[in-house]
């Protein structure tokens, strides 16, 4: 057994690098291996929001904890991470959604998350380019936006400062039963522990892993500084993220430091092609236009797609792989990879070192979905 490293992290997206950082900062000798270069998968394609979601207690706990970790990290992040501390505005189209706003407001107040309800008028003042007849919204102050590839590099750099090493263009074929990995070129790297943080590539390394590729579309505009002041998400986003079986779109727009805006979002299962699907792109942009009627006058520079690694219960898999010795899982983050990456790293390091984690780890343990046999979900 090689003594070179204590843990090998497979995958250098936001989750892999966050795990590498957490393990390295906890004193472990870390090797990161990735099939391409840094942030080439989901991380390089996605929106980069750091946002609290309260779909479930477990999701709230993870996003809230992780957002706190992001905020603590802010002073150490280089300018390239392009942090935009714009907060999130959840917008309600009707009274039913306003009821949801009120529920969220109460919940956040109880949990010391800074948020304010906006009525129709204050919403219009906060975001003049929204349609004027929305019912209101909820402003969540401490949410933010980062530029994912740079954030990923920053986390990796911090890991490297603590002695972590990286090998790019090193594709892993499988885990070694005794611990470690075998690369596709045959190289064996034995190690006490290995982490499967390979995102959409995770099921190839952990057979039976209930992680599906969920396709999304994004559009980036030219520079329109001051067009929006917050990240804006329609409350229907939650319904879209809930839907597992059919295609859905939900309005989501995010300001970047450059003044460009990222418009999303769409979710499709079963479409493996990375090509832009114009039918769903049209649906997504029409939804955006419903919320922001002037948006169709803006210039779009590029449309692209990405694949989110999605689990059946909307929570990631963080913990020991039930069927593989010496293997830990850190994957299945769907659209919350950036947000929950730091908490994932922290939890994972705690679990590996048998320390008590800051939040209970049970809801995210892979054993809930992967026992002796594959559970049908």
């Amino acid at each position, binding site marked *: 057994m090689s003594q070179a490293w204590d843990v090998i992290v497979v995958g250098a997206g936001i989750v892999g690098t966050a795990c590498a950082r957490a393990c390295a900062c906890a004193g472990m000798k870390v090797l990161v291996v990735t099939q391409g270069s840094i942030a080439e998968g989901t991380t390089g394609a996605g929106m980069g929001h750091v946002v609290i979601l309260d779909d479930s207690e477990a999701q709230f706990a993870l996003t809230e904890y992780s957002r706190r970790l992001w905020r603590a990290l802010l002073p150490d992040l280089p300018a390239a991470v392009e942090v935009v501390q714009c907060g999130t505005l959840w917008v309600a189209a009707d009274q039913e959604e306003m009821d949801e706003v009120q529920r969220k407001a109460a919940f956040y107040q109880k949990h010391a998350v800074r948020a304010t309800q906006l009525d129709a008028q204050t919403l219009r003042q906060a975001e003049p380019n929204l349609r004027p007849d929305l019912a209101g919204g909820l402003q969540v102050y401490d949410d933010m936006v980062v530029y994912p590839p740079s954030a990923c590099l920053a986390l990796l750099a911090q890991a490297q400062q603590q002695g972590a090493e990286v090998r790019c263009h090193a594709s892993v074929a499988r885990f070694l039963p005794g611990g470690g990995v075998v690369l596709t070129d045959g190289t064996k790297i034995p190690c006490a522990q290995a982490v499967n943080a390979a995102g959409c590539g995770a099921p190839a390394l952990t057979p039976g892993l209930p992680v599906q590729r969920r396709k999304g579309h994004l559009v980036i505009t*030219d520079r329109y500084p001051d067009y929006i002041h917050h990240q804006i998400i329609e409350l229907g986003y939650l319904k879209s993220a809930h839907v597992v079986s059919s295609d859905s779109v939900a309005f989501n727009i995010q300001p970047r430091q450059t003044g460009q805006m990222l418009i999303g979002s769409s979710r499709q299962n079963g479409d493996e092609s990375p090509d832009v699907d114009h039918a769903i792109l049209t649906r997504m942009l029409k939804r955006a236009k419903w919320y922001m009627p002037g948006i169709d*006058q803006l210039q779009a520079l590029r449309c692209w797609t990405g694949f989110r690694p999605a689990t059946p219960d909307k929570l990631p898999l963080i913990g020991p792989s039930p069927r593989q010795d010496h293997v830990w899982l850190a994957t299945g983050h769907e659209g919350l990879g950036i947000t929950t990456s730091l908490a994932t790293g922290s939890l994972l390091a705690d679990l590996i070192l048998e320390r008590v984690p800051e939040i209970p780890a049970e809801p995210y343990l892979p054993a809930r979905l992967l026992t002796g046999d594959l559970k049908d979900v």
Partner: protein
Amino acid sequence: MSDTVTLHINGRPVQVPQGTTVAAALEIAGQTYSRRSVSHKARGALCGMGVCFECRVTIDNVPHCRSCQTLCVQGMEVVTDD
């Protein structure tokens, strides 16, 4: 119909022949640059065919218009970066 068109460039009236592009009108008016780059350097038309986006100006309140691809129209309001 007149053979010329009068438009406004940064608030000043400029008269040009019909069929002149806004990029040409800028030069006729002595406005030698259309925009400021990200690091605030002056930039003007480069490719003349609408692919480089250096000739961008705001026309009738619409930003990011490629002036080399836009014909002057009577009464147009063109604004360049400072």
